[in-house]
């Protein structure tokens, strides 16, 4: 079992992550200190949660490009509601955010399931629709930190046994996903649907319904992250998390989740997100010219993907063996 772990994609990624942290530590001492690593994890928490949601969708051979818009819209709704009714408990706002996120995920899921539209087209459409809705409800105006209640902003920052609540939420989501994907029928169904949809039908799995569930769960996570994002940065505006959907997909791809579906693990998605998050946090302190930063981020993604593609390539069947080894 240990041997299979050492050879696994996760182990390679973990090694790369540790190497990256040490490399940054050599340029900027203090980066690898536990306190700073906890800060990096906290900063990456939202990316991790969205990457897990995206992972489910990708496992079923779909993709959800609307996650960041979903996040931004729910974030704006909670912020506007909080500004209008400061007395509303934060728990109610979080429940609303998750519900709203699930509904938006369900819209994606229904379109893919019932109308059989390719997921990339559906979510490219809802990406702009959700983003446009933010403009409609807010009229382009910002919700600023002084308009938000103290409780609204306090939750993700509050410390619990040394870690901010935001980190704890991410840890809880990771644990929940580990159980869901590895230990539940639905979780196995995601893999089955992506691995071989036709075979999945014969085992009694409803492919459409499973994809719908994946979109709904991813949407719910995006909704939760919407509240967390807006409250963490204490500002809500139309362009919140603009372009973040690509980071989420990149995290999944780095984490070894196959875009072709059916292949991927919770650990991979988490490590992929952490890898990207570490790069994002390292570049500002590593003293690298900002003009190089984008190129470095992009290169890291391509290298990781090339590596994954190589390691997952099936070795061709050997028909003729050279005599010496025969």
């Amino acid at each position, binding site marked *: 079992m240990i041997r299979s772990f050492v050879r696994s994609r996760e182990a390679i990624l973990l090694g790369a992550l540790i190497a990256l942290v040490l490399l940054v530590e050599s340029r*900027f001492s*203090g980066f690898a200190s536990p306190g*700073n690593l906890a*800060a990096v994890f906290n*900063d990456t928490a939202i990316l991790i949660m969205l990457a897990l949601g995206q992972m489910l969708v990708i496992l079923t051979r779909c993709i959800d490009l609307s996650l960041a818009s979903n996040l931004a819209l729910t974030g704006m709704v909670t912020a506007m509601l909080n500004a209008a009714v400061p007395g509303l408990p934060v728990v109610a706002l979080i429940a609303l955010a998750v519900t709203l996120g699930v509904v938006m995920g369900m819209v994606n899921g229904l379109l893919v399931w019932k109308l059989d539209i390719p997921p990339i087209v559906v979510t490219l459409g809802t990406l702009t629709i959700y983003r446009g809705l933010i403009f409609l409800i807010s*009229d382009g105006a*910002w919700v*600023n*930190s*002084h*308009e938000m209640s103290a409780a609204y902003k306090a939750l993700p*920052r509050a410390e619990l046994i040394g870690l901010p609540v935001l980190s704890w939420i991410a840890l809880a989501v990771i644990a929940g996903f580990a159980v869901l994907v590895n230990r539940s029928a639905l979780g196995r169904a995601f893999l089955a649907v992506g691995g071989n949809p036709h075979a999945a039908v014969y085992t009694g799995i409803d492919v459409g319904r499973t994809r719908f569930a994946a979109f709904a769960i991813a949407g719910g996570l995006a909704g939760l992250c919407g509240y967390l*994002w807006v409250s963490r*940065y*204490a*500002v809500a*505006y139309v*362009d*919140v*998390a*603009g*372009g*973040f959907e690509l980071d989420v997909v990149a995290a999944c791809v780095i984490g070894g989740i196959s875009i072709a579906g059916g292949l991927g693990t919770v650990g991979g998605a988490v490590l992929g997100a952490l890898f990207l998050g570490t790069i*994002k*946090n390292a*570049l*500002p*302190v590593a*003293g690298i010219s*900002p*003009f190089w930063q984008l190129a470095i981020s992009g290169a890291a993604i391509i290298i990781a993907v090339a590596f994954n593609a190589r390691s997952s390539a099936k070795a061709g069947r050997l028909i003729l063996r050279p005599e010496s080894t025969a």
Partner: protein
Amino acid sequence: MTFNRRLALGLGLAASLLGTSAMAQDPMRIALVAKSLGNGFFEAAARGAEEAAAELGNTEIIYTGPTSTTAEGQIEVINSLIAQRVDAIAISANDPDAVVPALQKAMQRGITVISWDSGVAPEGREMHLAPSSDALIGQTIIKLAADHLPEGGKVAVLSATSTSTNQNVWIAEMTKVMDQYPDIEVVATVYGDDLADKSYRETQGLIQTYPDLDAIIAPTSVGIVAAAQAVQDAGKVGQVNVTGLGLPSEMAGAIESGASKSFAIWNPVDLGYTAAMIAHALASDAASAEPGAEIATGRMGSVTLDDETSAAMSEPFTYDASNIDEFKSVF
């Protein structure tokens, strides 16, 4: 609510227009055309224009504009102003070119046309009043940081994208005047890409890399808010002062928390005031709009027109704890 407010504004406007057309032609009528009605920035500018009118005497301000920020809406408004034979039109254009034909028609009818805030192509106006100039902005942002660092110190710049023309020009202008501040050292320029999360992360990076950093200058409205939040979250309020260009409504929280001691942006009241002053001077032939001309603008001093007959009003206006409450609901 917004609709009702707009409706009320519209009705009020219609009433005032009806009223004025029935009145004698005696007072000078200056139309202040906003990008859209119901926007706090332009309403504040209208207040400034009214202030100028009161100072000038026998002047009437017609504050108008379309209900949404479209060039078509502004063209309709311009045509109706031509029909009413106003003396001057001062417009903040939604499109620099689309409104040109309508404004040319107005000028052919003898109406003085100037643009302010958001300019019109030179053939469509007599002069343009910019809120500020690149040089004045560059000088202001470093002054904002230096004012709170009498003993000197280390400052960093948090910009938008590395290719953003505005920011780069402002930073270059700032660098030009750095020899006036020998004790201030600019240690780094980082780019937050006008994204809240990246700006926040870059600010965290600055705080970590330069533990003795004294101020962060962010000449971008997204960056300055994110930087203030990051400083607050890092518990560095009082050590690191976040300043730069931002909007009062967005920065009120940062001023309240102390993460930002002061910041700057144009003052819409002054801008409306100056636009009305210039429009009055040109329409009454007290001044002419030609390159090099100097036009007196009351309490704001005077402006000088450049080769494109455009002029900069003043350096950006500084907002701090003393005036933030007054402006945070304005824009």
